[in-house]
């Protein structure tokens, strides 16, 4: 079950010092360090599920260890998504797409804030502001090797989905708060800490083979196959009603009354009627090819879904 645990080393937010299991939060920064122990962050895209087109996409559901959390967790903060069925989470993410303009403008705002924080003039390394004992002590000069702590404004909403990305969106700023710490950019990369590049530039398109494209390939193959046969003729307008033979896997039938496999009489569709059928191109005819999905559809108990 916990095969897919990926530990994320993240800085705890400043207010979380001393917090053990109490997850009441006073700010919007997520408690990644606490969740870390028991969460498994799946790949953003679960290829098998997306390709299979299963609507119950569990792109973002993090698995929580049951014993760790009490119901009070869910009520303490409206920002943390309490565990809901995957469809709800999916909808929340998809909704993000509708407010692209809003996010673009917000992103610009945050980008400018980033730039400001990155400019050195705004930095103050006055230690007296941080230490509340011995104010008379002269400010100790920081060694160059000391890691710099730079606090940027919360970058919860700094990402916006790229409009050029096709396929399902896999992160949305409004909901995936658990990911916001990954946008905590440290302007001076510290040798002791991992820096997290924003993942905005990654396009998930490459990660996900689109089932749509697979299906299209199938259709093209079907059309190429049927050039020589009557299915293609079906689409040409002639006066004579051509009879087209349509066989479907369901036409194969095994009946208990007659023990020989029975093929139902082939369905014949006259050409003029076939034209009026919607989507007459690529309609099932002349046998079926198995589409190479390269997708495993098994989901036995011991298999990991990801």
């Amino acid at each position, binding site marked *: 079950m916990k095969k897919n645990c990926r530990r994320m080393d993240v800085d705890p937010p400043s207010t979380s010092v001393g917090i053990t299991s109490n997850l009441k939060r006073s700010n919007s920064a997520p408690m990644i360090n606490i969740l870390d122990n028991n969460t498994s962050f799946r790949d953003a895209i679960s290829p098998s599920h997306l390709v299979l087109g299963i609507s119950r996409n569990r792109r973002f559901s993090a698995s929580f260890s049951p014993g760790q959390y009490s119901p009070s967790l869910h009520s303490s903060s409206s920002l943390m998504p309490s565990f809901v069925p995957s469809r*709800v989470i999916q*909808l929340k993410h998809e909704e993000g797409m509708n407010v692209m303009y809003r996010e673009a403008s917000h992103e610009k705002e945050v980008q400018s804030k980033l730039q400001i924080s990155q400019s050195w003039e705004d930095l103050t390394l006055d230690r007296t502001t941080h230490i509340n004992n011995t104010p008379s002590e002269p400010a100790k000069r920081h060694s160059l090797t000391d890691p710099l702590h730079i606090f940027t404004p919360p970058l919860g909403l700094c990402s916006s989905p790229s409009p050029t990305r096709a396929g399902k969106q896999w992160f949305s700023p409004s909901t995936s708060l658990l990911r916001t710490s990954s946008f905590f950019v440290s302007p001076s990369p510290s040798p002791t800490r991992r820096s997290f590049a924003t993942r905005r530039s990654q396009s998930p398109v490459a990660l996900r083979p689109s089932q749509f494209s697979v299906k299209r390939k199938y259709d093209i193959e079907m059309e190429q196959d049927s050039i020589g046969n009557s299915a293609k003729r079906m689409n040409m307008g002639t006066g004579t009603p051509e009879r087209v033979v349509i066989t479907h896997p*369901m036409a194969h*039938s095994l009946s208990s009354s007659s*023990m020989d496999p029975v093929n139902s*009489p082939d369905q014949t569709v006259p050409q003029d009627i076939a034209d009026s059928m919607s989507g007459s191109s690529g309609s099932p005819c002349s046998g*079926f090819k198995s589409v190479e999905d390269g997708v495993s559809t098994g989901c*036995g108990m011991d298999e990991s879904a990801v």
Partner: protein
Amino acid sequence: MAGNGEIQWCFSQVKGTSDDDVTEADIISCVEFNHSGELLATGDKGGRVVIFQRDPESKQASPRRGEYNVYSTFQSHEAEFDYLKSLEIEEKINKIRWLKRKNPAHFLLSTNDKTIKLWKVSERDKMIDGYNLKDENGRMKDPTSITTLQVPVLKPMELMVEASPRRIFANAHSYHINSISVNSDQETYLSADDLRINLWHLEITDQSFNIVDIKPTNMEELTEVITAAEFHPSQCNMFVYSSSKGTIRLCDMRSSALCDHHSKLFEEPEDPTSRSFFSEIISSISDVKFSNNGRYMISRDYLSVKVWDLNMDSKPVECYHVHEYLRSKLCSLYENDCIFDKFECCWNGTDSCVITGSYNNFFRVFDRNTKRDVTLEASREIAKARTVLRPRKVGTGGKRKRDEIGVDCLDFSRKILHTAWHPQENIIAVAATNNLYIFQEKL
């Protein structure tokens, strides 16, 4: 038709190929008998609808056999691409609902995630011969060559079944349509997606009324989605919809135009001792069906089927456990996503029995009167002449009896999500991935 006493089921037919390599487009996604039971429609992931018709010989035979032959096949929906949201729209047929018969043609509604279509399925067994202006091939005759007049006559021809789309109801749903239900007035129908329910008139395709909208203003507050909806079988103003949180709401369209406020809320209070992390997920209702008499309804959640009396909303009147042995396996089922499977359930014609599916190609039939239930398997091994289905048992204890199968040996990739019961006879249609099994009562 037997109402009391236990029904013995035997194999009648199986449709579809027996290849182990299943083309995804062939996976059956819905099964529905029409009102007379004469026709059986199936929809698949490839957007096709296959309609079977009762074999007239088998009906007359003694003992009566439940056999169906292919009647019509057509491509109902095609895959589409939503350019605005960069999302694919699957062509998978989510639901098929028949209209009641008004004329020799049959009408059915089929829907994918976004578009509903009304199909007319009609027979043609006569053709017109002897046109004056057209020749046999349909080409116009040269008027000067016509010297005599003839009266066109009807000539019999080989039976042809035509399916033509009569109405296309599109662009009304932002989210994925999960249910459609025809009203008892046979003029309107509802379509439900994750957050909204729309009311349509069968004649009007460019407008629909929104009658339920549970979308919160702030999507962050979204906690539940609509999972199924159905009109009452005889009261045209009432419908129910179920949610992912395990609630069923009965709404009356007479009370207000927007039925956001329910008339009745059916929810079983949760047992606080059995609350677990997965409680909410397994309480999500995947299907809700009114009984034929309109007094009860059944709801299917992950582990059980509950029978509700419409007059009592505090708790269900009956609860049948489908596969309670999975309760300890919820963690693994969550990992492999099986916990999100949407099983359907179905009444029989007299409302005395309920059928639903499970894993390992098992399906369960519950008799409400005798309180007995049986687990049967739809497998190719039993596809022999009128084999009586042997009840299967899943062993949970340490010691397993001879015939039992262990919980860990169950094949979770072979699941029966869709079943249908003939409205008048004891014939059931069970969809197992790409195969359609038809079982009948042993007579």
